[in-house]
């Protein structure tokens, strides 16, 4: 327990340091928060444009789709706030040798690498994503129970863990490739699918993106719990997939770590 408390203290200290830093560069912070807000609006706009020409996408109505997109944005904002910069920079640091710095710290390298920075500009847009979900739920006339809301919160955390695992597995390829330039594009390519309703996927795409990769369930399962209520099979799937993918990603990271030979200049 004391080890857990120690890690929690380190994480909190990192967050505090990042907040102070964000306030030192306020202009930058405001600009980045606006950039993220704009990108979020683009996603909402796409839903609006498509539904101005059609009534349903794979059986999902406009506000059901908005709820799905809002859920995806919520998970993504959380990832951006807590982990994105850290893992993105890991790719660069492994190449440059700056990764040594994390290995020299007294703690798990994975924890140190993952929690060094906290991005306030990502976090500040979390309420906006929640507002989109709440607005869509209101339009759908949903009145979720406390249990549904608790399950939604749990699935959002699972979603965050799944995104983290996906990104970690992709960025860890840098240990083999030597250059991470462009590989984060793989993450963005995959997470795009989380804005799709599961019912839209057929055949091979269904097998790959629903069953093999966790990119559809990450948003569909939380959205479903608000729209259709708690379904134990989906809950088991979500939690199981989260544990499995975290285990896979951490294994890849550690396998890569064993290959790391530092760099000198």
């Amino acid at each position, binding site marked *: 327990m004391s080890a857990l408390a120690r890690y929690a203290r380190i994480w909190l200290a990192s967050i505090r340091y990042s907040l102070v830093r964000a306030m030192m560069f306020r202009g930058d912070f405001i600009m980045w928060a606006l950039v993220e807000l704009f990108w979020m609006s683009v996603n909402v706009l796409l839903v609006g444009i498509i539904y101005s020409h*059609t009534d349903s996408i*794979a059986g999902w109505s406009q506000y059901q789709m908005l709820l799905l997109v809002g859920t995806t944005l919520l998970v993504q904002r959380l990832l951006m706030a807590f982990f994105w910069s850290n893992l993105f920079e890991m790719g660069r640091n492994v190449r440059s040798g700056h990764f040594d710095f994390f290995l020299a710290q007294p703690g798990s390298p994975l924890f140190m690498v993952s929690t060094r920075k906290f991005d306030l500009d990502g976090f500040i847009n979390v309420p906006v994503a929640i507002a989109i979900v709440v607005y869509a739920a209101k339009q759908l006339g949903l009145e979720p129970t406390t249990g549904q809301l608790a399950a939604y919160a749990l699935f959002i955390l699972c979603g965050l863990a799944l995104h983290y695992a996906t990104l970690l597995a992709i960025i860890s390829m840098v240990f083999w490739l030597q250059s991470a330039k462009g590989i984060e594009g793989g993450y963005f390519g995959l997470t795009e699918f989380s804005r*799709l309703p599961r019912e839209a996927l057929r055949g091979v795409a269904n097998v790959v993106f629903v069953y093999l990769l966790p990119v559809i369930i990450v948003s569909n399962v939380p959205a479903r719990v608000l729209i259709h209520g708690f379904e134990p099979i989906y809950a088991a799937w979500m939690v199981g997939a989260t544990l499995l993918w975290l285990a896979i990603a951490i294994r890849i990271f550690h396998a890569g770590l064993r290959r790391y030979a530092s760099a000198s200049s």
Partner: protein
Amino acid sequence: MSALAKYRQVFLTGIQTNLVYRWNFALRAAFSLLHLVYVFILWGAAYQGQTEIGGFPLSATLTYFTLLLVLQFFLSAANDDYEISEEIRNGLINQFLTKPINYLGYRLSLYFSARFIMGGLSLLPVLLALPLLWPHLALPGEEHLPLYLVAIPALLLSALIQFTIAYCFGLLTFWFLEIQSFVILSLAVEAVLGGQVFPLDLMPGWLYELSRWLPYYYQMYFPAALLTGRITDFGLALQGLAIQAGWTVLLLGIAQLLWRRGLRRHTAVGG
């Protein structure tokens, strides 16, 4: 050395530099196919139960997005803004102030070389996927030929607009230390008003009309719409070409102005 030979040499050097990153480019092109799969699934589902959206069948919309993917690699000034920013910050531009070479010409040559390699490499995964894509695509018929002819100068002007906007953003480094947020904000605007998220003609009429007067429309949407039959009126196509030419001249003027003003603020140090 004649003026043209100088820039030819820059172009050739650019080709060599870009070839070093061929695997990164190929990887990016492969990832963008993933985006195409997403687009096909999304629009395929949106078309379920109806034959047309905005007056176009599914095949026309999928052809539009496929072409856009290829054009992105041939036209997008992917990294030029950051490279220019880096050259200003590191003082590398100092050498251009004393040598008989125009910085804009130098960067433009590098832009064309990067697009040449990246565009070429992006075709590989698309060609490999073509047997799967082909049944879903449809090109406009022979009567569309005059519009293809308008598309040729439109493509060239699009390249110039793409480059000049990136060049201007790069030059902002004379005033701001960090330009990344400007660039990403501009990319987001471009994604919407340049037609990358959805074909612009699906927007409400007044918004589409407004977008026709903005430079983003001419960065990629205009030639793509000409080539995929989304613009069929020859008169409108010519009018578009005239607006595009106007924006190109205006943006080049702004670039020149930023360069002159920026140099006044610039301090070259070191020895």
